[in-house]
């Protein structure tokens, strides 16, 4: 078996706040193979964006990160700062959410893209112009400032920037959130094509499960800092097993089904605050099938099928209730 592009073992991330240590990620294992796309889904606040930043050690220095994050077999958590910088963007880049202020307002798009390749000593023959053409923006846009682009254009520019150093892995953090459905579909299709042409691996983070069916080979669902269900994309998205996954899927309206739009089912209540997590299974207060034991038993991921691929962290599966 070849070394995975990214392998995350027992990742724990905790912030220091006034109220004490706040766990944001609580023991996550992930693996992404060459050319594979892993979809990572969950509500906002479940720790998925923290995880994305932790992968490249971009969290504030006061944050505590333990476990291991292996890029091509080497642990980024034990590297010296210079080595970490060499990994950033060259081996793994991030497509940030364009709706936020992730582009510097006083530098042109071109300079910001160019800066990435320049930093890593890569002089691409086509340069910025080629990258902008790839994402369908047109080379002329290089001279524009971020405020001159629409939301969709900004997202394309961010994708071009993520490709600047030919990385092996792209971490896409909600790249289509806040875009309208038409543009969302265009961007997803473009990402899919780019990924296929370049043989890229991708970690695709979203709160919208419906997006994943289009792009993810495998899917992991996160809740309260943990992965609670993981499996092959088609398999998992066809039939969710964890009560949270089922509720999350049900909370999105099904296209074409007007009834579901008018009356979204599924999740009741708010996700738990990381500094006040429920005991046992963190989902039990919102779970419709919770039993007494869920309050006290800390559940872990267990295989539920013979293929070993599908794993669920729930007492009702994998014989954990015994």
């Amino acid at each position, binding site marked *: 078996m070849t070394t995975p592009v990214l392998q995350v073992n027992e990742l724990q991330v905790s912030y220091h706040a006034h109220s004490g240590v706040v766990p944001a990620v609580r023991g996550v294992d992930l693996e992404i193979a060459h050319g594979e796309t892993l979809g990572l889904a969950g509500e906002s606040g479940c720790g998925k964006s923290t995880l994305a*930043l932790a992968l*490249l050690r*971009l969290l504030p220095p006061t944050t505590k990160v333990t476990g291991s994050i292996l890029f091509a077999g080497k642990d980024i958590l034990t590297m010296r700062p210079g080595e970490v*910088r*060499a*990994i*950033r*963007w*060259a081996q793994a*880049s*991030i497509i*940030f959410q364009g709706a*936020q*202020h*992730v*582009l*510097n*307002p*006083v*530098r042109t798009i071109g300079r910001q893209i160019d*800066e*990435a390749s320049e*930093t*890593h000593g890569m002089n691409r023959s086509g340069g910025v112009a080629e990258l902008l053409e790839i994402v369908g923006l047109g080379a002329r846009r290089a001279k524009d*400032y971020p*405020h*001159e682009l629409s939301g969709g254009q900004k997202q394309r520019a961010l994708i071009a*920037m993520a490709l600047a150093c030919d990385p092996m892995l792209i971490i896409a953090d909600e790249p289509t959130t806040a875009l309208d459905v038409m543009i969302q579909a265009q961007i997803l299709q473009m990402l899919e094509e780019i990924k296929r042409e370049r043989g890229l691996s991708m970690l695709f983070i979203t709160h919208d499960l419906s997006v994943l069916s289009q792009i993810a080979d495998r899917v992991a669902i996160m809740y309260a800092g943990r992965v609670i269900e993981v499996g092959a994309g088609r398999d998992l998205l066809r039939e969710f097993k964890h009560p949270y996954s089922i509720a999350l899927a049900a909370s999105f309206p099904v296209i074409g089904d007007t009834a579901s739009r008018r009356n979204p089912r599924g999740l009741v209540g708010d996700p738990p605050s990381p500094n006040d997590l429920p005991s046992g299974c963190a989902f039990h207060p919102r779970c419709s099938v919770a039993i007494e034991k869920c309050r006290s038993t800390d559940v872990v991921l267990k295989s539920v099928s013979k293929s070993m691929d599908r794993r669920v962290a729930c007492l009702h599966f994998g014989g954990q209730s015994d």
Partner: protein
Amino acid sequence: MSWRYLLKKVGGAFLTMAVVVVFNFFLFRIVDRDPLAKYRGRSKLTPEQRETMIRRMGLEGSKWDQFVVYVKSVFRLDFGRSFDSTQPVLEEIKMRLPATLLLVGVSTLLTIFIGLYIGTKAGWRRGSRFDKASTSASMVLYSTPEFFFGMLLLAFVAGRTGWFPTGGLRTVGADHDFVGNILDRLHHLVLPMLTLTLGYLGSYALIMRTSMIETLGEDYLVTARAKGLKDSEVMSRHAVPNALLPSVSLIAISCGYIIGGAITTETVFSYPGLGLATANAIQNNDLPMLQALFMLASAAVILFNLIADIIYAFLDPRVKRVE
């Protein structure tokens, strides 16, 4: 930068200056009913001399007539004659302007560079020992009247050590060659310059620090670090250019304050510039001189603001295409 933006800002500056001119008339001719009453030598005037002075000061006829005469004279830069020296005010100002420009210019530049550097570094390393020390120091500097710095320097540096002259523009009666003359003037400039710089350093450093801390929360700095940039590059290329933006207009306004600071500093060091002239004019109730100095100070600040608006448009592309 669009022409429209430029035109709007220049127009605004002229409008503000026009209001200053009208305000000046209002204050010195209407609020103050008898400006001549403040002229000390008035009791010795013969009736003819008095007539001449009233005519010269444009105090004849109705208020409207006076206003027309006043506006005309402002356009000719004719501010009348000083009550004190009886010389034309414009000549007095011209004579003293270079000394103040040198003092204020050099200290403003020093203040901007040192203050922004300290503020940038403190904001970037927020909570560090440097930040704590420099912020405390900046607070104390900010809380100190600049002339008190002058007095301290005079008493404890010039007085004790004798390394620096205690006042004036140059050594009176000394016979220097060209280079010696320059050195002598610089020698006299050191303490006043230090006074003004210390007086305004604190507020510049605090402004820049706040601005820097605000910028540090921005998402694009995470983007820059994610791209593999070194901390120093993230700071110089992404944080500082953005943090400077809000500082530009604040600094322009405080450049105007420094003109005020020069008044007391020049007084402490008997440095014969416009500041000392202002202090003397206050002592002598020299209305024509004060009017002119007030208009000059206002014009300078309005100009600084205009320059800041133009610089801002160059630094922030978002301004350029705003119609």
